[in-house]
Structures are given as C-alpha cells and as structure tokens.
C-alpha cells in the first residue's frame, strides 16, 4: 500500500497535534485543521486519502462538511470522530457517505486499522 495522506479535523488543538504526531510516528503523512473552512481549504492542495473529521466542529456542521467533501471528491474517504451521544449524527454521516466512525477518546490501533481499510478502499476505486 502506498504512502497514506491524512487530514485530521478537530477544534481541540492539543488533541489533534498529539494524535497527528502519533500517526506520523507510524509513517502516515498528516495535516491538521481546526475548523471546517480550514479543512475545505486544505483539501484542494493537499488531496488527502483519508479525512478524520470530528462531527462537532465549530462553524459548519460536521455532516454538512462531510457532504461538501464528498461532493468535491467522492473518492476521499471520511472517518467520523464522535462522542457517545452522537448516534443520530453517526447514522446521518454513514448515509451521507462516511466510510466509518470512531469514538473519542480514540484507540490508536483501531484508528490506524480503519485508516488503512479506508485507504485500501480508495485505491481499489
């Protein structure tokens, strides 16, 4: 499998920077964004394989962001980061084309496994 480019989107800067470092230590290429607009701005130039998107980011709603991403490039796989109380949003997210979801706080092994699966799906087209 080729090098995986990830975009992490979460407004908790410390969370996202620690998670980004952990993924980089595992040889993933990572960029981060703290809100929807920043994320959408980054997608065009960076072209990530997988986006890990917090559903509760300030500004644009997470589901709205997911739909915009899929409209821009349906091949980009999106993994939603959610809290336990977000079951309705998760359902809506899956219907809107999300690849998977993962609960916060995340298990790094579970996250990388889902990222790898998402990347394989993207490569298969």
């Amino acid at each position, binding site marked *: 499998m080729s090098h995986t480019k990830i975009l992490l989107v979460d407004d*908790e800067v*410390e*969370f996202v920077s*620690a*998670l980004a*470092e*952990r993924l980089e*230590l595992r040889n993933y290429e990572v960029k981060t964004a703290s809100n929807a607009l920043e994320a959408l701005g980054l997608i065009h130039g960076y072209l990530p394989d997988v986006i890990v998107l917090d559903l*509760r980011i*300030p*500004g644009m709603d997470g589901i709205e962001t997911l739909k915009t991403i899929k409209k821009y490039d349906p091949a980009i796989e999106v993994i939603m980061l959610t*809290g*336990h*109380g977000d079951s309705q949003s998760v359902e809506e997210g899956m219907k809107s084309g999300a690849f998977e979801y993962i609960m*916060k*706080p*995340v298990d*790094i092994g579970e996250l990388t496994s889902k990222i790898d699966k998402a990347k394989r799906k993207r490569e298969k087209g």
Partner: protein
Amino acid sequence: MDNKNEQDLRFLQLRFIGKILAGFTHEIKNHLAIVKESAGLMGDMIKMGKTAENESQYLEIIQSIEEQIERALVHFTYLNRFSHRMDTSLSTFNINESIEELTALLHRFANQKRIRIEKDFQKDLNPINSNPSMLQFLVFNFLEEAIAKLDKNSRIVVKTEVMNGSVAIRVIPEGNVLESDAEKVLCPPEITDYVIKMLNGNISRQGEGAVITLPVKAA
C-alpha cells in the same frame, strides 16, 4: 392551571439539567481525549527509543496533561456548584457567580455556532436571597433560545446591574436572527412567567432578549 404549569416546569427543568450534563460530559471527554493522546504519544516515543534528546518535548507533553486536568477540574467545580444550588429552594448567593457557572457549562453549545457569550457584570453586586437554581433555569432558557435563533458568528451579552433597588440580568442577543428559527419557542412564556412569579421578580422581553429583575431579598 398551576398544576399544568408545574408539570411542564418539571419536564423543562429535567431538559435543562440534561442539556447541562451533556455539555459537561462532552467537555470532560475532550479533556480526557487530550490526556489519552498525550500519554499515548509519550508511550510511543519511549517504545521507539526516542528518549534523552526529547526531554524538553516530554516536559511539554507533561505540562499539557497537567493543563488539561486543571481545565477539567474547573468544569467539575462548576458542575458541583451547579448541583448544590438545587439543595435548597432559598439561599443567599452571588448572581455573577451563578451566571458565570451557567455560561461556562453552556459554552460548548454556543461554540457549535461560533456564538460568543460575553459577560458584562457589575462587580460590586451584593449577594441576593432567592432561588438560585430557578434563576439559572430562567437565564438558561433565554440563552438557549437566543443560541437557537441567532446566525453563526453572533454574540450574546449577559449583563448584571443594580436597577431601582432590584438586581437586573439582561440577556442581549446581538447578530442576525435566522428567518427559519425566528418563531422558535423552546420554553413557553407562561412557564418563564410562572417561575418569575415564584421568585417575586419580573421579566421584560425585549426583541429576542430579556431583562430579568429580582428583588435583593426574597419575599
């Protein structure tokens, strides 16, 4: 009439407590997620043999963990005070502190729409004798309605002041009101009027906002 209002009030109070707890737990989960990732990062670095040369990075991560724990503790303090306000129906309390705690617990909901809740408190406000949890319930309802109606990137000012021998709490929404949500009513006016009557105070609705006035001493 009062019986119906009592029933509706209980339902809305439970909804209020539920919303506060949801915001609190979400906030704490975020702090714990940061602590978990920070500890995980240190673990990764040790396992990968990145030790001595990264001493300063370790110290930074430890400091970040300490800061998250401090922030979580502040929220626990707010929730603890909030819970104890329901212990008695009448007590002497500082209005500014009770609203500070309420807005902190509501911060996450406002932040979802990038709405800032700004406090403009009269600093030398004397403590009042009233029902603190009912007052928080009232302020919550006006704040929640303003958050629902306002467009993104707006602000809500909460102002406290002494006015004609009473204490006034003004909730002033500032920003565009979403046309689709302009008629939204989350708490019927008859309930807020019912509660303010219990507190021997007054509510004056001004546009999307409101002024709650309370006597300094309970009747």
